[in-house]
């Protein structure tokens, strides 16, 4: 498959699926109640999917190699960011302080690691 066709297939199909997910209950709420089993499962989608995205980006220091030590700057920054997200409930503070912590930790590991 040519790369342009592959890109546009992904863009259009995912774009449409995302839009249908977004529209789903907003459009049909008047006629259909959300099945309880569906809403029970959906409740856990953000917790499970976001964690599954975050954890590999933090604990892997190389393909196939994890590090749970404080010499892993990404782990230090993620822990600080988690605390700040819990304490201040602000995505902006979490982002800015997380990046700054990462740079500091990288610098310290280079100096003393």
């Amino acid at each position, binding site marked *: *498959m040519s790369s342009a066709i592959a890109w546009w297939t992904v863009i259009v199909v*995912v774009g449409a699926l995302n839009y249908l997910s977004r529209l789903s209950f907003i459009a049909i709420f008047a006629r259909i109640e959300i099945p309880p089993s569906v809403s029970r499962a959906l409740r856990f989608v953000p*917790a*499970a999917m976001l964690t599954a*995205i975050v954890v590999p980006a933090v604990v892997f220091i190389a393909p196939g190699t994890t590090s749970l030590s404080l010499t892993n700057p990404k782990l230090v*920054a*993620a822990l600080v960011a988690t605390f700040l*997200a819990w304490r201040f*409930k602000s995505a902006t503070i979490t982002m800015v302080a997380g990046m700054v912590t990462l740079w500091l930790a990288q610098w310290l590991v280079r100096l003393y690691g």
Partner: protein
Amino acid sequence: MSSFYSRAAFLAGVRDMTPPLIGMLPFGLVCGVGAQSAGASVWESFGLSALMFSGAAQILATQLVAAGAPVAVTILTCFIVGLRFLMYSAAMAPHLKGLPPAWRNAMAFLLTDQAFAAGMRRFREKNDTRDGASYFLGGGLLLWSTWQVFCLAGFVAGNVIPAAWSLEFAVPLCFIGLLVPVLRDGPTRVAALTAGFAVVALDALPMRLSLICAGLVGIAAGMIAETRRRPR
């Protein structure tokens, strides 16, 4: 349209969405850089940000295309990550009941993690459909247009941004900011912990299938934990 439009609420939505944009900037840049390094053209990069309008889906799509994953796997992964929009849609729906279809369709298109959080806060505070809808549109339109600029900037500046900045770390940071507030009770924490362990344990699976599998295992674990806590 005019009978549902409140200029004051629209502008309040724009104003309240402005500070979070600072936090979105690194994430948008990373999405643009990702599209560029995966070999997308500038139009393909724009298509990703304009139509998917979801940082998580854009990042995963570019990573999977760059890794040569089949189109079907890419689509499935992005779709499953986007399932959280179903939940947002369900939570938002009762507040939009009185609106004309055109309003609801437009608001659905602009439904993102940030716009959802801001919109729901406003609906709960004011309990006014007309006010909340204009507020949501204001914030959502600002977010959509700024997101295009951020992603385009990342696409253009892809080669210039030094690797030492570790800008790609903006992606987990953005999701930590979204994740922590949803970990409000035991079962959601069980779902998150299980998904976290599973995604590392399943890392050897090809084409990042570990992500989908860990997500499903986490959801199942959360449902089991909930059933155990409240036996029927």
